[in-house]
């Protein structure tokens, strides 16, 4: 709604003051509202397709085909799953605390979606304007999602659920500390909490922070896997022990809400990692200017190439419907590629190029981060609960604290003593790694001593 149109509308209806306030509100905030609606509408769809990619990848690693029936190569499987979940019976156990049972999945979902409000998905695609506490807002609000997990587990009135919820709480408390300390390292380097300014700092310093604080990135990776309850840290919903953990009693739409919240949370942690460590929406080598045009055209060409590949695969589909669907996918790809490439030809549209390309690189990095999550899920066995706690408290948190110190020392050495930045980074990282090796060996010694002292390991949280 443009300014003039809104004003005309207001005059025509000669609105009361309250309605006038609403119109004023819309006039000021319509960009934010549109972006917010886009995010809320797109996240369920994206989550569904992340699940599809995950199943396909799992199938590939286990030498299977994965979903193949619904649409070509299972491309419509997420839609079928969503429809199934929506029309399933919604069961509330008799002795459950009905209101909290009803409310808990909503908390999970709302927290994850709200925290996306402060993320910049590209230089211009964001909901909240550059707020002063940006990254803190994302972390703080997304951590509220755990209230949903805990309350849902308690309200189900089931042993599996409550043990899942307890584990989840303990895990949250342990790993949020490590994750927070890892974030502090990146914040030290950027010197601000504003999301936009963090990415700009990486552009100004000509380096992504993953290269200046590799240990912090690794710590954040581990902590974020634990915070999103994913394998190998998926103790709160370990199928072999707890059925489905805190979600055991949930079914249908409520279960879908939990599920969406979890995947939305994955997108949030991936976005935070991308912003802090992987250069946000900056393309690779963003300061090498002769790459401006090749790298700028690359997104459009890649998406167009995807369309060509779809046409190539369409000929191999067994059913005619799937052949047609593959063509439709190809045409969609060509449409998006056209949107990316047209501004290069039509000069009045040039202003759109940074926004489009920024969104492409940002989403590519986020997808890459989630892809690593999937690798880890299908290659590593699940931890035992006391191992998880030991890893968090004995190794990860001390490592993160030492790393904050190291990053500070590296910055001090290069700014005050004029050391080469890379020399300082290498020296301090070597120090951090030495400390971590020491910690691991110390922990091993403790663990063997403890296991020889008492045959039964004490495990107060496992239930």
């Amino acid at each position, binding site marked *: 709604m443009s300014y003039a149109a809104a004003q005309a509308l207001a005059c025509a209806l000669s609105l009361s003051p309250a309605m006038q*306030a609403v119109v004023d509100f819309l006039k000021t905030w319509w960009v934010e509202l549109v972006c917010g609606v886009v995010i809320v509408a797109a996240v369920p769809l994206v989550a569904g397709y992340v699940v599809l990619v995950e199943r396909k990848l799992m199938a590939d690693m286990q030498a299977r085909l994965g979903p193949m029936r619904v649409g070509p190569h299972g491309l419509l499987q997420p839609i079928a799953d969503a429809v199934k979940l929506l029309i399933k019976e919604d069961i509330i156990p008799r002795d459950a605390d009905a209101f909290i049972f009803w409310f808990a999945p909503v908390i999970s979902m709302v927290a994850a979606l709200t925290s996306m409000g402060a993320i910049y998905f590209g230089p211009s695609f964001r909901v909240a304007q550059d707020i002063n*506490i940006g990254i*803190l807002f994302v*972390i703080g609000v997304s951590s*509220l999602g*755990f*209230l949903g997990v805990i*309350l849902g587990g308690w309200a189900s009135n089931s042993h599996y659920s409550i043990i899942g919820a307890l584990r989840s*709480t303990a895990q949250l408390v342990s790993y*949020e500390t490590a994750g927070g300390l890892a974030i502090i390292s990146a914040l030290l380097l950027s010197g601000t909490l504003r999301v936009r300014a963090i990415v700009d700092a990486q552009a100004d310093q000509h380096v992504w922070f993953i290269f200046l604080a590799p240990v912090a990135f690794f710590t954040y990776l581990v902590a974020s896997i634990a915070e999103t309850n994913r394998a190998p840290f998926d103790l709160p919903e370990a199928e072999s022990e707890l059925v489905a953990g805190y979600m055991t009693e949930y079914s249908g739409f409520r279960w879908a809400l939990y599920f969406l919240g979890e995947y939305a949370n994955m997108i949030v942690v991936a976005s935070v990692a991308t912003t802090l460590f992987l250069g946000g929406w900056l393309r690779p080598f963003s300061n090498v200017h002769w790459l401006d045009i090749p790298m700028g055209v690359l997104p459009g060409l890649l998406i167009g190439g995807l369309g060509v590949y779809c046409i190539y695969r369409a000929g191999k589909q067994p059913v005619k419907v799937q052949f047609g669907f593959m063509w439709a996918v190809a045409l969609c790809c060509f449409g998006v590629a056209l949107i990316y490439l047209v501004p290069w030809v039509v000069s009045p549209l040039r202003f759109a190029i940074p926004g489009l390309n920024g969104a492409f690189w940002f989403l590519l990095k986020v997808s890459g981060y989630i892809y690593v999550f999937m690798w880890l899920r299908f290659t590593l066995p699940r931890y035992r609960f006391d191992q998880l706690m030991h890893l968090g408290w004995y190794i990860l948190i001390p490592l993160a604290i030492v790393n904050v110190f190291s990053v500070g020392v590296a910055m001090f050495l290069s700014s005050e003593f004029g050391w080469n930045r890379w020399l300082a980074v290498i020296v301090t990282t070597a120090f951090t790694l030495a400390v971590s090796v020491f910690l691991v060996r110390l922990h091993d010694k403790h663990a063997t001593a403890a296991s020889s002292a008492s045959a039964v390991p004490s495990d107060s949280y496992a239930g």
Partner: protein
Amino acid sequence: MLDSILFYFFAGVAVLSAALMVTRRNALHSAVCLVSTLLAIAGIFLQLRAEFLFITQIILYVGGIMVLFIFVIMLVRLDAPIHQIRFRMQRFVAFLVVLALALEGVVILLLAHKLPGNGLLIQGSAPADKLPPNSEALAKSLFSDYLLPFEIASVLLLVAMVGAVVMAKSRKRTSES
């Protein structure tokens, strides 16, 4: 106008859920109401353009302290206190306090037009871009003007933490021996 609506919304939620928090028999319901009170107060902080306090309130109180509260509540038996009437002696005092608060509310409503400013309507706060950035201002005063109190507080917290660890450890050792 919008400021007034938001303020009364947050204030109403805070007061209502605080009242619910006291009156619920079930400890976990109380905890949920307390969470809602804390969130509403965070909203009021945000409305005062104190965004750092807002997010600290959420991270520390809701994300940290309340999670531990709920953790403890889930580990204790809840059925025993549900069937008891607690605080019987304090009923009279509570009645007096509520009476005083209600009187105060009535007086404020009656005298609203004499209050400075717009009466019960909140005057719009200063726009965020005219104020100094909140977290930077806080950090500056904390690390320059109030450095000594800040350090003393952090040492105190460290001592408390070490004390907690030592107490937890020694109990374990005695139970084993």
